[in-house]
C-alpha cells in the first residue's frame, strides 16, 4: 500500500473513533442537560427543551406545600445521620484500631457483612414492626438512628484504616504531656484523620439523601418526608408526571449534594501532611 493510502486510512479510523466517542458523550450528557435546562422551559416534558427561559416552574414548586419543606427534611436527616455516623464510627474505629481484642478483625468483617442486611430490604419488615411497637413511626430521630446504624459498619471499617495510619508516637507524645484519652482524640487523632472523617460525612449525606425506602416506610406524615420520598408524589390524579414540579425539584434536589462535596473538599481537602521524619 502506498504511503498516502495508509495516511488516509488512519485519518478515517480517527474520525470514526471521534464520532463514536461523541455519540457516547451525548448519550450520557443528555440527562444532565435535561436536568439543567428543563426547569427553565416554558413547556417542560420528557424532551430536552428548545431554548426558552422562564422561572414560572419555580413558582409552581414554591407553591407546593411539601416540596421546599422536604428539602429541609432531607437536610435534617442527612445532617443528623452524618454527625452521628462520624462521631460513633470515629470513636469506635479509634478504639478498634488501638485496643487489642481477640478476633477483632473477624468481628469487624462479620459486622460489615451483616450491615448490608440491617438497612437492606431483608430487614425492612422487622425494623418497621419494631419501631411500630415502640411507637416510633413518624419519628425523625428514630429514622436517623436506623440510618446511622446501617452506615456504621462500613464507616467504622473505613475509618479504622485511617486510624491505623496515625503513628502511635503522636498519641504517646501527648500522653506523656498529660493529655487524657479524650483530649488526644480531639487534639491529635481527629485532626490528623480529618480527611477520613470528611469522607465519611459526605458519604453519609449522599447515602441518606438518595435513600427512598427507609423514610418511605418509617415516615408517613408528608410534612416530615424527605425529598426523595416527596418526589414520588409529583404526579397528577391521572398518574401523569407533573414536569414543572419534577424538573425544578430535581434541580433543587441535586444542588445541596454538589455544594456539600465542594465545601468539604475545599475546607478539608483530601490530603495528609506528614509530621513524621522518615
Amino acid at each position: 500500500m502506498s504511503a498516502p493510502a495508509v495516511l488516509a486510512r488512519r485519518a478515517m479510523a480517527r474520525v470514526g473513533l471521534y464520532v463514536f466517542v461523541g455519540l457516547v458523550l451525548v448519550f450520557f450528557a443528555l440527562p444532565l442537560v435535561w436536568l439543567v435546562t428543563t426547569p427553565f422551559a416554558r413547556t417542560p416534558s420528557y424532551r430536552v427543551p428548545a431554548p426558552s427561559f422562564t422561572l414560572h416552574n419555580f413558582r409552581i414548586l414554591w407553591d407546593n406545600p411539601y416540596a421546599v419543606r422536604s428539602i429541609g427534611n432531607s437536610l435534617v436527616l442527612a445532617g443528623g445521620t452524618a454527625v452521628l455516623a462520624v462521631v460513633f464510627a470515629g470513636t469506635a474505629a479509634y478504639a478498634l484500631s488501638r485496643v487489642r481484642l481477640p478476633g477483632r478483625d473477624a468481628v469487624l468483617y462479620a459486622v460489615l457483612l451483616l450491615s448490608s442486611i440491617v438497612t437492606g430490604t431483608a430487614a425492612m419488615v422487622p425494623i418497621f414492626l419494631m419501631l411500630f411497637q415502640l411507637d416510633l413511626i413518624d419519628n425523625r430521630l428514630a429514622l436517623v438512628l436506623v440510618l446511622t446504624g446501617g452506615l456504621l459498619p462500613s464507616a467504622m471499617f473505613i475509618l479504622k484504616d485511617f486510624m491505623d495510619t496515625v503513628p502511635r508516637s503522636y498519641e504517646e507524645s501527648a500522653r506523656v504531656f498529660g493529655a487524657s484519652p479524650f483530649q488526644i482524640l480531639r487534639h491529635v487523632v481527629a485532626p490528623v484523620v480529618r480527611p477520613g472523617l470528611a469522607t465519611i460525612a459526605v458519604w453519609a449525606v449522599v447515602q441518606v439523601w438518595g435513600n427512598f425506602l427507609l423514610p418511605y416506610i418509617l415516615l408517613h406524615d408528608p410534612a416530615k418526608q424527605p425529598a426523595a420520598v416527596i418526589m414520588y408524589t409529583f404526579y397528577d390524579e391521572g398518574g401523569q408526571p407533573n414536569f414543572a414540579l419534577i424538573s425544578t425539584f430535581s434541580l433543587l434536589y441535586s444542588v445541596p449534594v454538589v455544594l456539600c462535596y465542594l465545601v468539604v473538599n475545599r475546607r478539608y481537602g483530601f490530603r495528609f501532611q506528614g509530621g513524621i521524619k522518615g
Partner: protein
Amino acid sequence: MAGIGLSGVTKTYPGGVTAVDGLDLTVHDGEFFALLGPSGCGKTTLLRTIAGLEQASAGTVSIGDRDVTRLAPGQRDVAMVFQDYALFPHMTVLDNIAYPLRVKRIPRAARHDRAREVGAGLDLADLMARRPAELSGGQQQRVALARAVVAHPKAFLFDEPLSNLDARLRLSARTFLKRLQRDLGITTVFVTHDQAEALAMADRIAVMDAGRIRQVGTPREVFGRPATSFVAHFIGSTPMNLLDATVTGGRLTLAAGTLPCPADLPDDTRVTVGIRPEYLTYSKDPVEDALAGTVGIVEHLGSSSLVTLETDGAAPVGVVVEEGAEPEPGTRGWAVPRPGRVLLYRAGGGDLLA
C-alpha cells in the same frame, strides 16, 4: 529536678518475651545518662517504662522521692522526645511547642508567649508559623526539644534523639544537645545504639544487653576498663582485639606471641586478652613482649590508619598506626601493648579478671 531510681524493674510482654530483666539503676539529679546497647537489648523498653508508656511487670520506678510505678505517664512530670519526633502535623511550630501548656489549660496568650520564648532560645523564632512538614530534620528535632523544654519536667527522656539526622548534622546536634542539657541542668536519660554518641555526650553510661545492664560507668571507665568482653567488643569505634590465651608461668601465651601476665593467675587458666588497637604500638622490627603477624589490610581512618596483622589460624590483631607510618601489606610486623592497657577476661565471653 530529681534523680531517677529503678529497682528490680522487669518488663515481660504478653507472649513471654522478657525485655527488661530485674534491673537496678540510679540516675543522679542533673545527670546526662545514656542507655547504650545493640537493638533488641531492652533499652527503649526501659525508657518507655520510666515514661510510663509501658507498665513494669515487677519492681519500682521512682522519680525524685516519688514512687511513680503505678502512675500514668502524664502524672510523672517527665518529657519525652521520640525517635520520629512525633510533631503534630496539623499544628504550627508554635502550637506544637505550646501543646504541653495547652494540656495544662494555660490560657492561649500565656502559653504562646512561653512557647515563643523557648523557641527563640532554640533558634526557632523565624519558623513559628510553619508546619512540621516544612522543616528540615534538624529543625524538627529542635521543635521536639522545645516542646519538651516548655513542659518544664523533672526529667527528659530521649529515644534515639540523633538517629534521624545525617552524619554531619549529628555531630553538631550532639554538641548542641549536651550544651542544652548542661544549661537547663535537668536530669536526662537518652537511649542510643551508637557507642560514639554515648561516649561523647553522657556523664555516665549504662551498657545493656539482653535486658540486663552489663556495666554502668563514666565514658572513661566504660571505654578504658570494659567490665565484660561484650562491653569491650561493643564500645569503641575500632573493635577491641579479643584474643584467646593461656597462662603459663606468669606469662600469657597467644597464637601471635607471648605477653607478661598483668595478674597472678594459676597456670593453664584460659583467658581472653583484650587490647584496644589504639593502645598497641606498631614496630617493623622484632621486639620483646609483642604480637607478631603479617600486615594484611590497611584502613585509613583520617589522622591514623588501622592495620590488621594476620596471624596463622588465629584471630587477626588490629593496630592503630600514625598517619605516614603505615607498613606495606605483606611485610612482617609486631604490636607492643602499652603498659597497663592489657585486660583479661574469663574465657568464653566472661567478666573482667584484670
